[in-house]
């Protein structure tokens, strides 16, 4: 089975080698057409953030910052408490991912081993189908009752709605691929369920923990609606802080672009560093047939 994909690859490789010049041009035209929208939007964001305000509202537009200036970034840091919002985002996303892993990884194991994957999968699918906003109404009322509106704790709890289903979903797939015979052998030798989970199954499923953690991090970091509704002035996460900038500084394009870039930079860095794991998690582990 392991040699199959490479056989497909080499066969495609052979076809590429044989392909005519016209076919090769068609391939590259396709690649450029598909990749350029991403490149253009990200480059334009960078360009806006590095230009002076005069160049930003010039017509025709100035494409290459000349000379590039960091003035917009300085302004973002001076006028906003970006570091505080960044720290809030770290706390909320970090907390939600950590708790998500602590409850989600064992849950994925239990579900995979007790063969109740179908029922759990349906529950997780329902969780994915439901708009996040609909959880927010009852949770908002609950937090109001508990006096927790505007706290980091409330945000961490709501972000569990995002992280737990992703992690459980990914972990079920990985634990199902860990052969059960290894654990049975350990148990006959007297290991407890907990020990066979901790010392055998978990180390073998470690790539799943990485993939699940990364995906949960990305989608939790990107979420902004929970923070818009629940956060107070001092507990906003980065995305909702930038959303608030929009209403007050609609015309200052440079700082707005700089702030947008700062918000999304951590996620883009993670994507570049972990692209192999992300591709594996989204194309195979997370979405297997079933």
């Amino acid at each position, binding site marked *: 089975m392991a040699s199959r994909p490479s056989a497909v690859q080499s066969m495609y490789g052979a076809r590429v080698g044989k392909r005519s010049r016209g076919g090769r041009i068609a391939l590259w035209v396709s690649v450029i057409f598909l990749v350029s929208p991403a490149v253009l939007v990200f480059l334009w964001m960078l360009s806006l953030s590095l230009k002076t305000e005069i160049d930003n509202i010039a017509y025709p537009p100035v494409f290459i910052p000349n000379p590039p200036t960091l003035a917009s970034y300085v302004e973002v840091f001076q006028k906003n408490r970006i570091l505080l919002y960044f720290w809030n985002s770290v706390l909320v996303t970090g907390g939600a991912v950590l708790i998500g892993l602590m409850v989600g990884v064992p849950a994925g194991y*239990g579900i995979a081993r007790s063969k109740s994957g179908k029922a759990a999968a349906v529950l997780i699918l329902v969780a994915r189908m*439901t708009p996040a906003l609909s959880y927010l109404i009852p949770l908002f009322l609950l937090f109001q009752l508990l006096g927790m509106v505007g706290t980091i704790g409330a945000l961490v*709890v709501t972000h569990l709605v995002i992280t737990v289903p992703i992690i459980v979903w990914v972990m079920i797939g990985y634990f199902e691929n860990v052969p059960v015979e290894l654990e049975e052998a350990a148990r006959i030798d007297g290991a407890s369920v907990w020990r066979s989970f901790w010392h055998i199954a978990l180390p073998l499923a470690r790539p799943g923990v990485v993939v699940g953690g990364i995906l949960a991090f990305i989608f939790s970091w990107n979420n902004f609606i929970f923070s818009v509704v629940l956060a107070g002035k001092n507990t906003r996460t980065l995305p909702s802080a930038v*959303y608030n900038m*929009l209403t007050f500084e609609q015309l200052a394009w440079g700082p707005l672009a700089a702030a947008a870039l700062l918000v999304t930079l951590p996620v883009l860095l993670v994507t570049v560093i972990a692209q192999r794991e992300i591709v594996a998690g989204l194309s195979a582990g997370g979405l297997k047939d079933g």
Partner: protein
Amino acid sequence: MSVAAPKREVVSSFRQHYWLFVLPGTLVIGGVIVFPWAFTVWMALHEWNVTGDHAFVGLANFVNLFGDQRFIESVWRTFWFTLLATLIPVILGVWAALVFHRSFPFRGLLRTIFVMPMMATPVAIALVWTMMFHPQLGVLNYLLSLVGLPPFSWIYDPATVIPTLVLVEVWHWTPLVMLIVLGGLAGLPTDPYEAALIDGASSWQMFRYITWPLILPYVMIALVIRTIDSLKVFDTIAVISQGGPGTASETLNYFLYLQAFQFYNVGYASAVVLVFFVIIIALSLLLLYARQQTKWME
């Protein structure tokens, strides 16, 4: 035999312990997902505002909802948006998967760049699009003028705002479709292609009669996921058009947000949640049924 018996006993006694692993996760899911659901049903039967005053009104919220022109329009608008924001990314995503399945120089790097939009923070990207859509100073109208086209109204005209928002959604989520279909392509058997090559089949015939039927189940998964996510669209609309101009881009989820957190009609909004959920379930079941059919055809 004497060895197998204790083994089975050990294993089955362990099976009884698996629920302990699931317990913490179940408690969390119960707290943040099941409780809200139960509470939503309860609230939908009440006239309720955010100060906590409430009275039982039975199905009055639902009756009002189906007489609410603004709600009905938002439902149809959501369907229109979902149709476009599902079909276009699926078509482009399948194409992208076929392209990235080939081997060519810098494939890994180019694939990473292609995947980046789906990871980027939607709020941040929506800000950049908002600036690009600016009628006088936006770069998009400038680019149109370069090829001799008149300025486009983008998000400033009720007739063009939905297609414009679809454009942003396509930019974000085509990579997800690509990754799902790429996963399908990676598992394709090689034998049919070898046989087809020997028989002298054309590239198109190989795609139409071998590749397409084999990746169809993956395309259907992508279709279901895109449908669900398009129905739920929120971030892009909240930042770029705020439901406007007028109510021209007010989709179901944005209508829900306004009712719950701008007008504070909590009971009414809960009724919207339940109707919304029925729509999502119905469409998903329809698509999953269609997927079963495609599987059977194999």
